[in-house]
C-alpha cells in the first residue's frame, strides 16, 4: 500500500500535499479542541501503535499469516481526525527514517492510508453499529469497516497509479512514471485486496474491536451511537441513484415487446394483451417535452423525487391511520 518515490509524478505529489495540508491543519485544530492537553502524547502513541500493529502477524486459514494497516482500529479508538494525524505521523517516520514509502509520496500515502482509511472505516463502523448495538453487531461492523476501508484505499492507489499514463506521459507519449493504465492498475490493486488483504484487515479489526469491547478501551466501548449514520447512508444511496443513468441496456426482466421478440422469438399472449394498457403519468420516467440526454436525465431525477415523496406521504398516512 505504501507508494514508493518514482511511481507518481511531482505534480501528483504536489496535488496530494496541497490536498492534505488543510486536512492536517483542520485535524490538528479539531483534535486540539476535542482532546485538549492530551492530544500530543495520545497522537504520538496512536502513531506508535499503528507502527507496532503493522508488525503483528495474524494467523489465517491455511497455516499462513498476514498483517493489517491498523488505521481503522485507531480511528475507532481515537476518532477519525486523530486517526488522520496519528497515521500521517507514522507514515512520515516510515518514509524518512525507515525507507518505507516515498518521501515525495507522503501526501498521497497519507491521503490513502490516513485520510481515506480513517474516515471510511470510522463511518462504516458508525453506520452499521448505529443505535444500541450488541457485541456481535459491533464486531461485524468493525470487520466490514476494515474491509471497506482497505479496499477503498487500494482503489485510490489504483487510480493514482493508473492516471499517471494520462497526465504525465513524455513528449513521445510513453509513460514516465507508473506505466500501467487504469484498466490494469485498478484490478491489480483491487483483486489482492478484495480476496486476501481485505479479509485480513477485516479479521484483525474485528478481533481488536472485540477485545476493546471486553476491556472497555477507546471509542468502541461507547454503548450507544446516534441514528444519524443511518440517515446519512440513506441520503447517500438516494443521491447515488441517478448513477443508473450511465448504464446501458435494459434492466433484467423489464423487456419490451421488441426485446422479447428478439430474445425468445415470440411475445407471450398475456403480455401482448395487457402491454400499453396503462402508460403512467411519466411513461418510461420521461416526458415528451424532454429532449436529449440531459433533458431525459432531469425528468428521470424529477420522477425519482416525485415517486419518493408520494411513497413517503403514503407511508405517513398509512402510519397515522394504523396508529388510530
Amino acid at each position, binding site marked *: 500500500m505504501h507508494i514508493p518515490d*518514482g511511481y507518481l509524478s*511531482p505534480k501528483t505529489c504536489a496535488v496530494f500535499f496541497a490536498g492534505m495540508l488543510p486536512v492536517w491543519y483542520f485535524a490538528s485544530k479539531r483534535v486540539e479542541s476535542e482532546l485538549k492537553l492530551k492530544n500530543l*502524547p495520545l497522537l*504520538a502513541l496512536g502513531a506508535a501503535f499503528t507502527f507496532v500493529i503493522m508488525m503483528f502477524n495474524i*494467523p489465517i486459514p491455511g*497455516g499462513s499469516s498476514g498483517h493489517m494497516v491498523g488505521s481503522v482500529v485507531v480511528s475507532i479508538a481515537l476518532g477519525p481526525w486523530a486517526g488522520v494525524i496519528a497515521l500521517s505521523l507514522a507514515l512520515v517516520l516510515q518514509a*524518512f527514517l525507515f525507507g518505507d514509502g516515498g*518521501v515525495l509520496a507522503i501526501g498521497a500515502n497519507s491521503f490513502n492510508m490516513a485520510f481515506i482509511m480513517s474516515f471510511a472505516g470510522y463511518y462504516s463502523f458508525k453506520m452499521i453499529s448505529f443505535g444500541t448495538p450488541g457485541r456481535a453487531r459491533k464486531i461485524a461492523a468493525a470487520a466490514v469497516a476494515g474491509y471497506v476501508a482497505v479496499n477503498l484505499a487500494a482503489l485510490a492507489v489504483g487510480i493514482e497509479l493508473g492516471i499517471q499514463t494520462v497526465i504525465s506521459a513524455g513528449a513521445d507519449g510513453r509513460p514516465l512514471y507508473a506505466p500501467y493504465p487504469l484498466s490494469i492498475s485498478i484490478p491489480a490493486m483491487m483483486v489482492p485486496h478484495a480476496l486476501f488483504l481485505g479479509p485480513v484487515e477485516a479479521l484483525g479489526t474485528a478481533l*481488536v474491536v472485540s477485545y476493546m469491547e471486553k476491556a472497555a478501551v477507546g471509542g468502541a466501548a461507547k454503548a450507544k451511537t446516534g441514528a444519524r449514520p443511518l440517515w446519512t447512508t440513506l441520503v447517500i444511496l438516494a443521491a447515488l441513484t441517478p448513477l443508473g443513468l450511465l448504464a446501458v441496456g435494459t434492466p433484467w426482466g423489464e423487456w419490451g415487446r421488441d426485446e422479447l421478440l428478439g430474445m425468445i422469438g415470440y411475445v407471450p399472449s398475456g403480455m401482448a394483451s395487457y402491454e400499453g394498457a396503462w402508460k403512467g403519468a411519466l411513461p418510461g420516467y420521461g416526458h415528451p417535452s424532454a429532449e436529449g440526454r440531459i433533458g431525459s436525465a432531469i425528468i428521470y431525477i424529477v420522477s425519482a423525487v416525485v415517486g419518493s415523496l408520494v411513497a413517503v406521504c403514503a407511508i405517513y398516512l398509512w402510519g397515522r391511520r394504523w396508529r388510530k
Partner: protein
Amino acid sequence: MAEVRLPDWLKEPRGELCPAGKGGTHGFLDKTLMNISAFMRATLSSGAADRPGALQSLSPKARIAGFLFLILAGSLTGSAFMLIGALVITAVAMSLSNVSAASLAKRVAPPLFFTSVIAIPVFFEFITPGAPVFGVSIGGLSLSVTREGAETGLFLILRVGVMVALSSLLLLTTRQADFFSGLKELKVPHLFVTALYMTFRYIFVLLKTAEDAVLARKSRTIATVKLSEAQGWAGSRMALILKRSISYAEEVNMAMISRGFDGRLRTLRAPGMEGRDYIWIFLTLFFLFLSFGV
C-alpha cells in the same frame, strides 16, 4: 569518554535457539518476532551515521534539504542521463561518506526488485506496442519485447532505484537525533516535530511490550493450537497494546504537565551553516534546476 559500539556479530540474528511454536498456527509468532527484530536491528545500529565522512560533516539542516532537492530532481526529470547523473552523485557521496556499497544495496534491493517484477509486462508488446527487439516463446505462446517497452520499463526501474538510493543514503548518514533537529531547523512546526519525536520514542516501548507478549506465548507453546484460539490471542494482544498506548499517553501527559512542558522539543543546538553546507546546497540546487529543463 571512549565511544562504545556494539560489535557487528552481536547485531546478527542467531540460528534457531527456541524451536517451540514453529510452523502451523504458530508461524505467526515467528514472523512477528522476525519483524520486530529486523526493525530493531535496522533502527538501533546507527551504521555509517557515526563514522566521519563528507555527508556526516554537513549540518543536518543542509543535509536534509540537499537530499530533498536531489529527490525532487530525480522525480522531475524525464531524462535517463539526469538519472544516471544522480546515480553518480549518490555513488560519489557514498564513497566520500564511508558508507559501504553493501549496506546501501541492502536497502535499495527490495524496492528495486519489487519494481523490476512489476515492470516486466511493460517490456512486452501486449502492454507497450512498438518495434520488436526479440521474441520469446512460453508454452507455445510467443511474446515480443519491444524497444519502446524496454525503454519504458528500464526508465521506471532506473528512476525508482535512484530515488530509493538517495533517500537510503540520507537515512544511512543521519542519526535520528540529527533528523529531528534538522526538521526543527528547517522550520517544520514544532508541534509536528515533537509529535514525531514522541512517536519514534514510544515505538520502542510498545515494541518491547509486543515482543515480550509474543516471546512469552512462544516459550509456553508446545502443541499446535486451534486457529480460532491463535487468532483470539493475536487480537487480545493488539488490543492490550492499544490499551497500554492510551494509558501511557495519559501518564506522559501528566508528566508533561507536572514538569511544565510547553510542547517544544529541546534538541542540542545544531551548528550553524558553514562553507561546505553552502557548497552542498548550491550543488544540489544546481542539479534540481537542471532537471527542470530535461
